[in-house]
């Protein structure tokens, strides 16, 4: 019989168990497929509208972009904005096609760790080109591609027997944990941010979003109290999601809270890519197993 380690050793053992315990790649494969699909859609959009926005005569042309990253101004960090679209705006379509191809490889499980790295480089070229035009989902997407470069959760095809096999790996667990922690931190700061801004807390922001048809939800403009109710609901949902993340017994509830939160984003803000990104991150916490496993290797 072994004795339970106490104090510092106990914490180290838990840390070790949390981050470095081998895990099945199936949940990560689900995340990889979903991220690959979303990235494909995003790069297709950049292919269609990239030049219109970031081209030589784009709506947000290179000179304007350089102005807003604070080029030449100390402390703005403009030196680290490494997008080549400032110098070569005509490359927008090429970068979008490259990003789409690598995202497709990610979706199909091809290209191992190179695919997310190339997709990330392509995506960052657009993000660094106009950081002030980035939406919340852009940060989540970029981080997801970096995490997937550690492990893509790639499943091996085996025809004898005809199954998908995936051996538990430490790198898989590490990647899933990174997704989980990032998701938790994001929700926590989203909640803190909403609570700290008066126009959010008093419902004015939500009401304006509803009134101006930002989301998929239209209401008469005199229903101001609904904005307050909506905001309080979103705040409560985020708190509930955090609670359920930390309580394994409430995991089933957390998943439904997350669905409700994502629905609120769609109805209120209409930012479907943000909703999709959050949903994909939540798969690390509450996995959905849509890949059928008929055996193991």
């Amino acid at each position, binding site marked *: 019989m072994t004795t339970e380690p106490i104090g510092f050793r106990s914490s180290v053992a838990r840390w070790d168990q949390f981050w470095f315990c081998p895990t099945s790649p199936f949940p990560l494969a689900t995340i990889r497929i979903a991220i690959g699909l979303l990235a494909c859609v995003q790069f297709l*959009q950049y292919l269609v509208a990239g030049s219109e926005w970031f081209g030589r005569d784009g709506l947000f042309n290179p000179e304007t972009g350089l102005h807003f990253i604070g080029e030449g101004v100390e402390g703005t960090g403009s030196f680290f904005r490494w997008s080549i679209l400032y110098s070569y705006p005509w490359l927008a379509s090429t970068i979008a096609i490259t990003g789409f191809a690598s995202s497709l490889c990610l979706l199909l499980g091809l290209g191992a760790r190179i695919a997310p790295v190339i997709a990330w480089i392509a995506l960052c070229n657009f993000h660094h080109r106009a950081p002030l035009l980035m939406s919340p989902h852009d940060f989540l997407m970029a981080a997801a591609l970096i995490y997937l470069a550690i492990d893509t959760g790639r499943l091996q095809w085996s025809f004898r027997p005809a199954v998908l096999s995936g051996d538990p790996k430490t790198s898989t667990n590490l990647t899933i944990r990174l997704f989980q922690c990032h998701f938790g931190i994001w929700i926590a700061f989203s909640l803190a941010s909403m609570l700290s801004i008066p126009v959010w807390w008093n419902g004015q922001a939500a009401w304006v979003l509803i009134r101006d048809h930002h989301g998929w939800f239209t209401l008469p403009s005199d229903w101001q109290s609904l904005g307050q109710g909506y905001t309080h609901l979103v705040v409560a949902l985020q708190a509930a999601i955090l609670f359920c993340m930390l309580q394994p017994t409430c995991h089933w509830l957390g998943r439904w809270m997350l669905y409700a939160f994502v629905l609120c984003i769609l109805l209120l*803000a209409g930012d479907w890519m943000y909703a999709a990104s959050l949903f994909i991150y939540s798969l690390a916490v509450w996995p959905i197993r849509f890949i059928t496993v008929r055996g193991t290797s």
Partner: protein
Amino acid sequence: MSSHWKLLISIAILVHFSSLCVAYSANQMRSPLQDRVLVFLQPYLIGFNFYPETLPVELIADENPPSSTRISISSSGQGEWSTVLSTQVSALESLSLHGLKSRRLLQLLSALSKNEDEDGILRILESVAMRVDSIDFKLGTVDKPFDKIRLELPGVPTDDGGLEPVFVEALVARFEDGEIGLVPKVEPHRSVRSKLNESAKP
């Protein structure tokens, strides 16, 4: 995995998430210490695209959400304004990158107006004007060449509970080399804020 690798990875994880927490928590307001830490971490946070710049983390990022913000163009002799970009996009448009970026750009303009950064507003308007000039843009009854561009913002609440729109208007100057420049209307050093003329509603 060896214990040395685990130690290195553990340190990297702690540094990574600590950096994220500093960046996210400094999104709205930041202390001088946070500012110094962020400047130190810029190569990592900005280089790897973890730095959310000035965008708050909440659902839609602005203390004052944009309402009916739009960029319009017009030509002399015509009272009508044609909308180029607007926050009020259709449900289908809101699914596209163009719809998302349009809202983001107008949100940025709203924030610039709040900070009275007329130079920043005019830079964006100039960029939009150059775009409109470079394509075969036809909206409403305005034909090229347009010579006026304006930004309409929701403005300040009035006594009767409505909102008085604020306009930032500029004249479009075309140079011989084909370049475009903007001249702020009335006052060259300040944006123009005037009351909405009913006949000039787009």
